[in-house]
């Protein structure tokens, strides 16, 4: 049974990115084995009985058995004991997940329709979450609008981000690499696109990344724009290296040309058009896209200088 448990653990689950993930999978493996045995008894028993006691004639005599106290006590007690075991096992693990470690690296993560923003202590903002390997990390979750939920399948962790209060979760990544972050609380139009990456890097890479990101202000304006384009999640909806539309229109070689709108008119693709598209995304929809646009407004999200940098970057895409 233990061997089977080991074999089952992790099957059908995403890769294990934390120690907790391994423990969750062990419990899941145990549950799978017990469930399999229970179903084998119930379904197997059913199939055995219906074949064995198949009706032979309309006058078949059947046994008259109204109850059997011993059996009934047995099949109430055994499930109860199993349920209590898995309950207690789950409790212990759940407690580990909920007990925040001390001295963890704290990152503030804000959800909004439909992106995540991680804010680090030194002021760096990023739409991807970058963390060092082998270190306790605590995420403090908040939301600017509706309820979202922060889910990293490979880490087996999930926590709702609720407007009007903070929630938190922690993890200690054991594997380098990139992992999906999904929003799992339904939040409207682009709920399914509220996906980002969680990058686990070495401590050195992490330190370097933090410094680089905080020095973005010293870069040339277009390069800064390129950074913002990535970190403010513009890149998740807009292509910049080919003309194909993603969730939004491509920005590749668009600058200075005519922008065709969904109402049939055209406007020049210039600074003011790009600015308005970011501030009031519903105002001028590109042709081929239906209202309402899933693009969130960046009003109050971007400073004037950040806005100018992004515009400068889009200019350079020609």
């Amino acid at each position, binding site marked *: 049974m233990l061997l089977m448990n080991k074999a089952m653990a992790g099957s*059908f*689950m995403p890769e294990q990115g934390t120690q907790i993930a391994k423990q*969750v999978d062990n*419990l899941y493996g145990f*549950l799978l084995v017990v*469930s399999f045995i*229970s*179903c084998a008894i*119930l*379904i197997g*028993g*059913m199939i055995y*009985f*219906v074949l064995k*006691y*198949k009706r*032979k004639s309309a006058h*078949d*005599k*059947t*046994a*008259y*058995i*109204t*109850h059997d106290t011993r*059996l*009934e006590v047995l*099949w*109430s007690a055994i*499930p*109860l004991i199993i*349920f209590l075991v898995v*309950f207690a*096992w*789950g*409790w212990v693990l*759940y407690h580990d*997940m*909920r007990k925040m470690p001390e001295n963890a690296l704290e990152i503030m993560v804000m959800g909004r329709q439909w992106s995540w923003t991680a804010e680090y202590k030194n002021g760096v903002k990023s739409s991807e979450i970058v963390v060092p390997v082998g270190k306790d990390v605590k995420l403090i979750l908040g939301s600017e*609008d*509706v*309820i979202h939920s922060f*889910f990293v399948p490979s880490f*087996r*962790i*999930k926590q*709702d981000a*609720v*407007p*009007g*209060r903070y929630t938190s979760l922690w993890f200690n990544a054991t594997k380098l690499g990139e992992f*999906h972050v999904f*929003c*799992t609380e*339904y939040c*409207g*139009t682009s*709920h399914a*696109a509220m996906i980002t990456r969680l990058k686990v890097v070495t401590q050195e890479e992490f330190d370097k990344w933090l410094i680089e990101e905080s020095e973005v202000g010293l870069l040339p304006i277009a390069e800064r724009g390129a950074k913002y384009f990535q970190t403010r999640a513009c890149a998740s909806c807009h292509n910049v290296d080919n003309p194909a539309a993603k969730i939004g229109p491509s920005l590749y070689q668009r600058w200075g040309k005519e922008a065709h709108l969904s109402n049939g008119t055209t406007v020049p693709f210039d600074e003011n058009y790009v600015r308005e598209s970011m501030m009031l995304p519903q105002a001028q929809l590109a042709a081929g896209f239906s209202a309402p646009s*899933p693009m969130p407004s960046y009003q109050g999200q971007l400073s004037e200088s950040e806005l100018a940098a992004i515009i400068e970057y889009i200019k350079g895409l020609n």
Partner: protein
Amino acid sequence: MGHASGKNYINEEPGLLSWFTSLDHKRIAILYFVSIMFFFLVGGIMALLLRLELFAVNSAPNVGNILKNGDVYNQVLTYHGAVMVFMVIVPGIPAILGNFFLPLQIGAKDVAFPRLNLASWYIFMLGAALAVITFFVAKVDTGWTFYTPYSIRTGGAVVMMVVAAFIMGMSSIVTGLNFIVTVHKLRAPGMSMFRIPLFTWAIYSTAIIQVLATPVLGITLLLLAMERTFGVGIFDPKLGGDPVLFQHFFWFYSHPAVYIMILPAMGVISELITTYSKKTIFGYTAIAFSSIGIAAVSFFVWGHHMFVSGQSEIAGIVFSFLTMLVGVPTAIKMFNWLATLYKGSIEFTAPMLYALGFLFLFAIGGVTGIMLAVTAIDVHFHDTYFVVAHFHYVMVGGTLMAIMGGFFHWFPKMFGKMYSEVGARWSWVFIFIGFNVTFFPQFILGAKGMPRRYFDYVPEYETLNRVSTVGSWLITIGFLIGLYVIVQGLRKGKQAPDNPWGSKTLEWQTSSPPIMHNFDHDPVVTAGPYEYK
């Protein structure tokens, strides 16, 4: 075999209008049957559209992508859920089969309040009509759960939809009240509480939940409507409210509602298994009390929907523990049914196939329910396709199997005609296989982390989604065959004898179809309901 006089509830009063003013519980059951089947068709078409959309990732050219954008998908998803829950599965068995057979099974002439019974159908239709109108006025995209603050801020006729659900809830309360009084007051002489057939026991337990839990849903939905209309701050943090409070209120109704959906199904299964095994039910008292037990505990488990909502750790643990306790009476029922098959004389009629299908699907739905009740496991599975698969196994696998099985079982009694056995068995084959093909892959998708309510997904989930979509077509074929069998049975079915299955309960002791007042003479009951000796 009809009644000697040739009169029965169908032909006693002529004209279509007589149906809409009838106070007869059997006729009202037929009204419910026709309307609920229509809503089932609507909800089913929505489900097919959703599955078709998910057939492929959206970047793939020309396949899948039929719902245009996330908004349309979210609306279809909302109507699929709301229609299926509020207009099909919650009213389904109690309003159709319960209305028809509860009075017959206890030897009564009708329910306690026939006028209220007819009124409940009109109230239900009013609510349903309002819900349908929202689809044409301004489509709602909140999901059937109406979670705040999304439901307060999004567009669409949310208030109207919520009022519709409120009105349908009223109908549910009235029906429940009627059944409770009927069981207590109108039993035939000798029909003690422990001689009541288990189907009636199940409907009775359900009625208790309907009466106690539904008002909470009503109040919650009204608060939501007030917040949206007048800006009273209850759930929206911007107005000083608490969005998680809504979840507590909502699940305080909606978790017991899960048992409103499944308890009647369990009642049907008890009837089918004894009849087609020709054997007395094993553990009558245990099954009857486990229905009441499930009804009682179901009020204290709502927090298991909220393990990651930000509720305290201790709340999570307490709700996990209480949820485990619901598992015990459920397991008892499964074992009792199994023991009933032992040394029986089992006939593989279509209703029995549906009953066996129920046991199969419910076993899987049950064990996965226990997995979800384990806090640490639920953190990973919560709001993924694992949950979608689990509740479809229980609610669809369970309840729909029971509706179909129960419907074929009682078809001869309801209409006085026989249906085609062969056709009905084929419908079972397609529904049963199609169901597993559709929903089993979703367990794996959920374990791999695919979130629910997603218009699109990352490419690694595509293969399993394709399998699932193909399964939905098989289910459709199964239901179309079922519909054909029913229509053919009504048109050309052979005349049914009074008791074609050799069943022992009272409804089979009157003519098929029953006369207006059910029995020629008030039946006198001298033994339990399943005396197959």
